[in-house]
């Protein structure tokens, strides 16, 4: 408050224009970072001690066959040419062919797996964010109450158990040990949207929710306490505004920016966490695809998965930035 216009605003269009300029710079920056990621991934796999042709053909391959394949794969061409062909192919939607089994196009493998993983992460956020807001607001309102302390220690304990361990405990509790409610492995027929198999995805989603909850709840709680202690809330109290109205009209909207930012971070963390969780529940997402590809030394597939993880990260952060911009006009010039 009290931050009036520092300079006279000559035009009403200026804030919009500034926001648009900021957004364009932001997108350009993200694309540059993504390009840098592709260079890093490319160079990392070029630095690999093994010969890709050897990996594909196996230990027993004849030297002529290896030389033949090296030429076919273009491994004898300059690095820059190889990189540009790889990136050019990705831009055209051609991610190359898998080295394993039937040599399927990588895109056909990554696409459906990516959709599955995003469904998982989206469901996780869909449950985690409202729950965290509810818990965070309640613990902020009833600060230092028994409920607050109980929630604090529970969440601290929850954040102390690694995701896969939480998953195993839940399996022990809900699928094979005490109760027999949910399947321990997510059996989703290939080509079908996991959304239509709620029982199969319940446990992985639950693990993601429980993993994101501690961080998000604490974030909501501390931004809520800041908002409740602010001058404008005290002012509203002095004016005799009802507590409910203070909460929903004054305090809550002002927690939007940090909470959106935190929600984006936790969604991104879930995406990273899916690598381990998908392996635990044998869920057919990109994380499981990546580790399978690593086991079979299917490098084009590994590379494509890493780049698609980075692309998802970029999109999640961009969406968050746009939402923050939308939620709070002050953020337009803040960055």
């Amino acid at each position, binding site marked *: 408050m009290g931050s009036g216009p520092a300079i006279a605003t000559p035009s009403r269009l200026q804030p919009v224009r500034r926001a648009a300029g900021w957004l364009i710079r932001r997108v350009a920056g993200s694309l540059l*970072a993504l390009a840098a990621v592709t260079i890093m991934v490319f160079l990392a796999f070029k630095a690999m001690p093994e010969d890709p042709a050897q990996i594909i053909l196996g230990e027993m391959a004849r030297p002529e066959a290896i030389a033949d394949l090296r030429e076919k794969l273009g491994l004898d061409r300059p690095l820059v040419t190889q990189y540009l062909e790889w990136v050019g192919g990705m831009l055209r939607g051609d991610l190359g062919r898998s080295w394993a089994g039937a040599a399927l196009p990588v895109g056909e493998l990554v696409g459906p797996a990516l959709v599955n993983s995003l469904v998982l992460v989206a469901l996780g956020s869909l449950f985690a964010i409202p729950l965290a807001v509810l818990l965070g607001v309640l613990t902020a309102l009833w600060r230092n109450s028994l409920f607050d302390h109980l929630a604090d220690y529970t969440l*601290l304990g929850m954040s102390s158990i690694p995701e*896969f361990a939480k998953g*195993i405990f839940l399996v022990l509790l809900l699928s094979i040990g005490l109760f027999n409610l949910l399947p321990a492995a997510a059996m989703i027929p290939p080509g079908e949207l996991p959304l239509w198999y709620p029982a199969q995805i319940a446990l992985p989603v639950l693990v993601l929710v429980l993993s994101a909850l501690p961080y998000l709840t604490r974030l909501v709680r501390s931004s809520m306490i800041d908002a409740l202690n602010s001058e404008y809330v005290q002012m509203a109290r002095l004016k005799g505004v009802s507590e409910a109205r203070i909460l929903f009209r004054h305090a809550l909207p002002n927690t939007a920016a940090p909470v959106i930012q935190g929600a984006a971070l936790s969604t991104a963390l879930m995406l990273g966490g899916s*690598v381990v969780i998908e392996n635990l529940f044998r869920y057919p997402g990109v994380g499981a695809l990546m580790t399978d590809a*690593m*086991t079979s030394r299917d490098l084009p597939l590994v590379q494509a998965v*890493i780049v698609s993880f980075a692309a998802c990260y970029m999109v999640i952060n961009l969406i968050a930035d746009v939402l923050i911009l939308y939620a709070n006009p002050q953020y337009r010039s803040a960055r």
Partner: protein
Amino acid sequence: MIEEQLLATGPADLPVPAQRPGLLRRALRQTRGRIGLGVLLAVVALSVAGPWIAPHSPYDFVAMPFQPPDAVTWLGADNMGRDVLSRILNGGWILMTMALSATALAMLAGTVLGLVAGYAGGRTDAVIMRLLDVVLAVPERVLVLMFVSVIGANQVILTLATGLVFIPSIARTARAATMDIVRNEYVEYAEAIGMSRWQLLRDEILPNVTTPLMVEAGFRLTWSIGLITGISFIGFGTQPPTPEWGLMINESRDGLLFQPWAVVAPILCIAAFVIGVNLLADAIARAAGRTE
């Protein structure tokens, strides 16, 4: 004028910036800090003494696979008939060494990069931070897996990769704290009396960024344990027959129904380790005034 005052009073009377000694002491004044330290010390003691007090060798087959707990194997046997208790007691220091090395490595590199970026500013700052942004553009676990798939799955690579992915966030913390301090007048004074840049960084700025860095170190140590055990759990970290806790959970997973102890015991050990570090880190953060 400030300069005149400074010259008149001399460096001895300069207002000492909040050095916050006793950060650990203030952390231990809180209940959670004391509980955290107690749990942590217990886990460390058990891990250090473990190899000597273990009843069996961690590699010997002493019972039937998935043998439930009995008089010989107090926590039962794992998927190959090895004593779970002995493996846990022998495996603690492995995880501890990996987590501590990864965090120490990241703290060292991140602090140096952050100090240099924050103090130098300009193009040096931009280059360092943009390079670190590339690391941040990929999920930590995915990046660790990339290194593992290029170089190979073993505990050294896993430790180094974990350290590497933590560098950006530490560098950001160090950079932000440095930039706050560089604007202070005692830094201007030190520059004015001709202290070398390196001396200034080491003697004036570093001591003043330790508080945020201590807080960061606590959280990174917590994270590193989860990251390392998670990667080992999916089979790309420590390799069999090493008795590392994350790997042990994976190996005995199929016996969850008949011999849950082979899985639950290592999980509880990891949880105790993390809870200890986490409570202590939380207490340090509160003592440093990061949360209310």
